[in-house]
Every structure is written in structure tokens, then in C-alpha cells.
């Protein structure tokens, strides 16, 4: 169609205009005139630069010999790289320090033993008084840099009282065509929303209850494996992804399972702009594989298969730098079929679980202040927990309500006061906890993901 129009246009043009050769000469003349004009401008500019340089040389001569001009010494750092800053032989390094004070109506041994019956036997990490790190990682070291034109590498090393862990270390491809990208090494799965976020980037001190119940206090954590994502060239944002994981998470999977890799995930992330200043994000995902661990039922090993389905929704309104609202919600649904081996009695029974969890949270930002509220609950629609085909009753429905106030003196520091009314213990008692948390970041500026 376009070609046809062009032909038609050309035909019309030829029939009305002077012979084509005359037109050509005029055009060439025009081009030459323009380029000579541009060259004279460049010459003028260069002459100015020469004058300036002469001045500078004169100035420098007055200065002490051997002193390098500031402009010259920095000219090598003028090219910006992937991470926005100067290109250096050294990688970008940033360090986060996370410290908090914790108070609760429960004592330390009660906190340590406070699991969620029917979901997890693992207790709370925090202790009365002073602590380092929301997920026991008081210091997190991030190192990132391009390897070459084909890969970027990211490493995240959390430090705790017990030592250093290897939370993440992975390479991301940057040269694959057609919107494909691969990630390999050890990384946090992009299953659902909170899972891939780092504890310091959470909107609250602690992870939402469904994550704690199904994956643990820090979500799935770093998993060894590979990830493939594809961003098709559509008019709207849709990312498709799949992961092949070793499956070492000790709540949903288990490092001691007999073969590997034995965990997989598939996810879709979609987004569109609801208004000029607001965006909606959503997407389903699933994480499934072999389960073998001792953290689901006290004094028993669970061995079988699990699938965790997730649905995320996140809406963000950001009209200016000083104001904003985010509303976020996720729903997780677990299916699990396992054998339960009682450690003491050595009896084997069947286990069938169909359980779910949900949270809804909102943050309002005004200037350097942020105010947050969250409600999370388990067993919203599904509460099947059958041991030897008999439905168990682990207790009242677990839920929690949270309120928080944050003051962020700058982009690099955060002071947060949070209060939880936590009824996830299922024994009628509540854990009323208050947390005063400080987070500090130094070093390279890491970009903020959405």
C-alpha cells in the first residue's frame, strides 16, 4: 500500500516538476551549502576551544609543575556504563546495614518456638532487644558489574553473626536477540512478587504471612539454577518466564531430596498504565517440585510433591516526587501430597494439603514520610490438612494486622517503626510486637526495580 502511494506521489511529482537532473543539482547545492555552513560553525567552535585551551595552558603554567588539571584527570571517567556511573575496572559495590530493636509480649523461648501449626514449625528470628537484620542478615554486600559485552554479574553476600552466606551470585545475558534473556547461577526466583525482593526493599519489616507459611521467613531465598525470560515486542508489557531450580528451599522443597534439579517455576508478568500517573501490575505464577524436609510437621519428615500457585496484583500512583500510593496484594495456593515419617515411631502416613494464604497492603508516601497498613491471613478458602486421610484441626485461623510509619532522611537511609498484632500461633495467644528498624546504604547507587 505504502509503495503504491509512493509511486503515485512520484508520478505526480515528476509530471509537475522541472526535469529530475535540475532538481538534483539544486538539492546538491543545498546540501553543500548546509554542510559548508556547518563546517564554518565547527571551525568557529574549534577556534573558541583553541582560545580556551591556550588560556588554560597559560593558567596551568602558573600552577605548580606536575599538577594534573582536573578536567584531564577525570576525562577517562566520562563514559557512562550499564549502571549509570563511571566505567571502572573495579566492580560497583554497595553495602547495606540493617539493625533493629524488638519488643513483644512473648519471651524469647516463646518466640523461638512460635511456628504456624499446619504450615511451618520454624519460629520467629527476632529476639527481645537489639538485633541485626530483618532476615538475620545484618549486613548485605552487593557487588555488580558487566563481565563483557555479553553478561552482567550480580553477587549478594549477607553477613550475620554466624558468618557469610552466598545468597545470590548470577550472570544475566545482555546480547540475546528478540527479547530473550537468560540468568544463571544462584538467584531468588521471580515466582510471584515479594519473593525476588531483598529484605531491605520490603515495604514492611517482615515478609507477608503466606510467604512465611509456604516458603519461610525470607521467601524461597537464593536457589541454584537457570532462568529464561522473554519480553515479546507487543504494544503492552508482557514478560514470560520459566526457571529450572535445584530446589533447596527447606520449607517447600528440601536440599536432601534424592535427585536434582527438582523444582520448576513458570510465570507471566503483565502491566498497563491505568492513568497518566498510575500503573497496574499483575500476573500468575507457579512453583512446583519435590518436597523432602522436616519443617512442616514437628518431629516428622515429609516426602512427596508440592505445587504453589500465586497471583500478584500491584497498583502504583506516583504523581510527583513527594507523593505516592501503592496497593499490593497476593494470593498463594498450595497443593501437597506426601508421605509423613514419624521420626520417633518410624510410622509412615499419607499427607494431603490444600491450603491458601492472602495479604493486602497499602503505602502512602508524603515527602520523606511513608505510612503503611497490612492485613494477612491463611486458610482463606482452603484449609485441607489430611493426615492418614483424616482432616486435622491445628487451631484457629491464622491472621495478622500491621501498621507502620517510616521516615527516610535521604534515599540512602530509612527509619521505620512498625507494630504487628499477630494471631498466627493458632493457640489463642497473640504476639503484639513493636519494631524500630534502621537501614543504611552506602556505596554504588543501585537502581530501583518496579
Amino acid at each position: 500500500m505504502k509503495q503504491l502511494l509512493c509511486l503515485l506521489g512520484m508520478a505526480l511529482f515528476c509530471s509537475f516538476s522541472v526535469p529530475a537532473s535540475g532538481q538534483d543539482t539544486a538539492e546538491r547545492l543545498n546540501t553543500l551549502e548546509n554542510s559548508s555552513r556547518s563546517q564554518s560553525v565547527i571551525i568557529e567552535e574549534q577556534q573558541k576551544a583553541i582560545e580556551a585551551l591556550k588560556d588554560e595552558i597559560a593558567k596551568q603554567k602558573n600552577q605548580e609543575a606536575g599538577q594534573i588539571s582536573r578536567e584531564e584527570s577525570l576525562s577517562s571517567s566520562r563514559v557512562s556504563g550499564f549502571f549509570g556511573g563511571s566505567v571502572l575496572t573495579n566492580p560497583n559495590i554497595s553495602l547495606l546495614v540493617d539493625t533493629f530493636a524488638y519488643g513483644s509480649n512473648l519471651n524469647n523461648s516463646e518466640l523461638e518456638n512460635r511456628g504456624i501449626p499446619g504450615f511451618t514449625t520454624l519460629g520467629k528470628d527476632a529476639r527481645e532487644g537489639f538485633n541485626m537484620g530483618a532476615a538475620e542478615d545484618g549486613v548485605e554486600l552487593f557487588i555488580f558489574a558487566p563481565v563483557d559485552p555479553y553478561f552482567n554479574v550480580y553477587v549478594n553476600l549477607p553477613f550475620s553473626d554466624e558468618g557469610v552466606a552466598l545468597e545470590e551470585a548470577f550472570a544475566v545475558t545482555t546480547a540475546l536477540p528478540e527479547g530473550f534473556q537468560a540468568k544463571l547461577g544462584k538467584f531468588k526466583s521471580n515466582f510471584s512478587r515479594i519473593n525476588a525482593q531483598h529484605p531491605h526493599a520490603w515495604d514492611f519489616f517482615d515478609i507477608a504471612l503466606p510467604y512465611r507459611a509456604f516458603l519461610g521467613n525470607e521467601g524461597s531465598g537464593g536457589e541454584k539454577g537457570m532462568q529464561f525470560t522473554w519480553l515479546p515486542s507487543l504494544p503492552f508489557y508482557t514478560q514470560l518466564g520459566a526457571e529450572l531450580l535445584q530446589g533447596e528451599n527447606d520449607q517447600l522443597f528440601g536440599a536432601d531430596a534424592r535427585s536434582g534439579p527438582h523444582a520448576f517455576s513458570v510465570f507471566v508478568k503483565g502491566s498497563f498504565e491505568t492513568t497518566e500517573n498510575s500503573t497496574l501490575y499483575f500476573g500468575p505464577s507457579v512453583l512446583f517440585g519435590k518436597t523432602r524436609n522436616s519443617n512442616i510437621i514437628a518431629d516428622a519428615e515429609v516426602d512427596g510433591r508440592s505445587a504453589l500457585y500465586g497471583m500478584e496484583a500491584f497498583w502504583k500512583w506516583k504523581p510527583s516526587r513527594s507523593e505516592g500510593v501503592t496497593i499490593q496484594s497476593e494470593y498463594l495456593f498450595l497443593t501437597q501430597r506426601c508421605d509423613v515419617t514419624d521420626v520417633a515411631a518410624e510410622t509412615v502416613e499419607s499427607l494431603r494439603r490444600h491450603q491458601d494464604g492472602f495479604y493486602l497492603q497499602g503505602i502512602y508516601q508524603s515527602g520523606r514520610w511513608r505510612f503503611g497498613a497490612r492485613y494477612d491471613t491463611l486458610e482463606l478458602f482452603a484449609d485441607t490438612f489430611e493426615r492418614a486421610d483424616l482432616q486435622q484441626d491445628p487451631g484457629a485461623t491464622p491472621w495478622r494486622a500491621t501498621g507502620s510509619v517510616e521516615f527516610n532522611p535521604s534515599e540512602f537511609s530509612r527509619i521505620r517503626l512498625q507494630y504487628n498484632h499477630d494471631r498466627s500461633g493458632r493457640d489463642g495467644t497473640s504476639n503484639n510486637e513493636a519494631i524500630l528498624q534502621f537501614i543504611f546504604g552506602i556505596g554504588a547507587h543501585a537502581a530501583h526495580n518496579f
Partner: protein
Amino acid sequence: MRIVISLILSLVTAAPAFAGVNVVATLPWIGSLAKEIGKDKVTVTTLVKPTQDPHMVDAKPSMLMAGRKADILMYNGLDLEVGYLPIILESSKNPRIVPGKPGNFDCSRFVRPIEQLTAVDRSMGDVHPLGNPHYHYSPGNILRVAEGMSNALADLDRANAEFYRANFGNFAAKVNERQKQWHAVNLKGKRFVAYHKLFEYLSKEFGFQLVGYVEAKPGIPPSAAHIKKLIGDMTHNKPDGILTTSYYGRKESESISAKTGVKVVLLPSDVGSMKGTDDWFAFMDSVLAALR
């Protein structure tokens, strides 16, 4: 399943027909320059809105989709877009625009930055060690950026190389002509207080003085004590105005103005941020008209 696949495929192929070089610019002034040089041979998408503060932009999926389809990504550099540019570069999964490729165009490569800091840490606020990034107020630097841009476009689209170079010639001639008008206003000897460190290139090229800042440290809201001292100084020195932009510190500047009697001079922050600043020339015209 087959239906889903065919649906996706039909959507992929139904994507808008390719028209010229697909330029994605982070900031409005960069988009404006790209249009001056590329004219109808390029399609320009600008990521940041003129009303947004370019220091504090959140990456959005729509930006990734623009980056995904870009032939060339043009950005300000000097760490200004450090909060969102790395995500666009990596997550838009487009090998044409990554650093080192001809489709990665850092405008600041052609700039002579001022205020490069050798000894710097964040106790000084949100400082840019590579130099002051707000060089779009500097005609001398913009001329060099535009030249670099014409060469980059010529490299990408060799068939139209002469076209881009000729457009740069016209652009440069227009800048030189306007420079006479802009410099006709004598600003030497004028003294201004500024809200943020945005106007240093202007001050350097047009010879006025910046005698104080409302923000004692860039990016960090001023303390009450600093404001009190500034008001004291200003009542005593009577500068010619408080320079600010509509997105950044307007309210604070107006309250200081009310207390000192020094007028607020509202300057456009970027192309399109105020009425009558539709391209870079109009933007500079209104900047100098406001300073008069």
C-alpha cells in the same frame, strides 16, 4: 494452546510498521534535539515527562517496552538517570542499546562538565561526582551534543547520513544566530539565589552570580536554621531573584520570597515544562526572558 500461540504471533507481526530510526530519549530536551537532527527520518519516544523531576523517576514497564523497540537510546548521563536507566538497559532485553553498541548514546560524552568533584561523599547530599548534569541550559555544550547526535544517527542510518549532517548544520547556524540574541541581554552583575544546583552552566555562560542555595545540600530538604540564615543574608544583600522550577522547590521559594521581598524567578526545567517551551530554542528563549 494453538490459539494462544497464533494470537501472540499475530500480535507480534501486527506491531506498528517500522518508520525510520526508532529513537528513545530519556529526557524531553534530548527528544527535542533528536527531532531537530533527525526530522522525519526518525520516530522519537521520550520516557520522562517534562513535569517530572529527572532525579526521581521510577522505571515503568512502558519504558521497557520503548527500550525494547529502540534502535538508539539517548540519555543525559553524568549519573542523572542512575535510578532507572540501568533497569531500562538490562530489562528491556534489547542488545542494540547496551553500552558499547552504536545504539547507546550518552549525550554527556560530548559535554565539558563543570563541578567535577575529586573528593566527594554522600554527607554532601545527592552530589554528582562526574560533574553537574544539568548542561541542557548550556548552548555551547548542546551544540557539541547535537553534532555527536548527527554523527551517531549517520552511523546507524548511512543512507541518510548527509541529511543528518545537513540538519546539524542548520541547527548550528540557528544556535549561533540565537546566541547573539541571548547574549544581548546583559546579565553580568546580576545576583541570584537558586533552590537546587540546576543553573550553574547558565551562570557560567551568561555571567550572572549564584550567591546562595535554598537547598544547602543537593537533594536534601533544607533545615529551618539554614532557611533562617538565608533569609537574614537575603534581606541584607537583596539579590535579584530566587531561581527555581515548577517541579522542584517552588513552594519553599515562594515562602522565602514572601519573607524577604525578593521575587521568585520561575524557569522551565526542561523542554515542554512551561507554556511556550515546545522545542529547545523556545526553552532557552524563555529561560533568558525570565532572567532579564
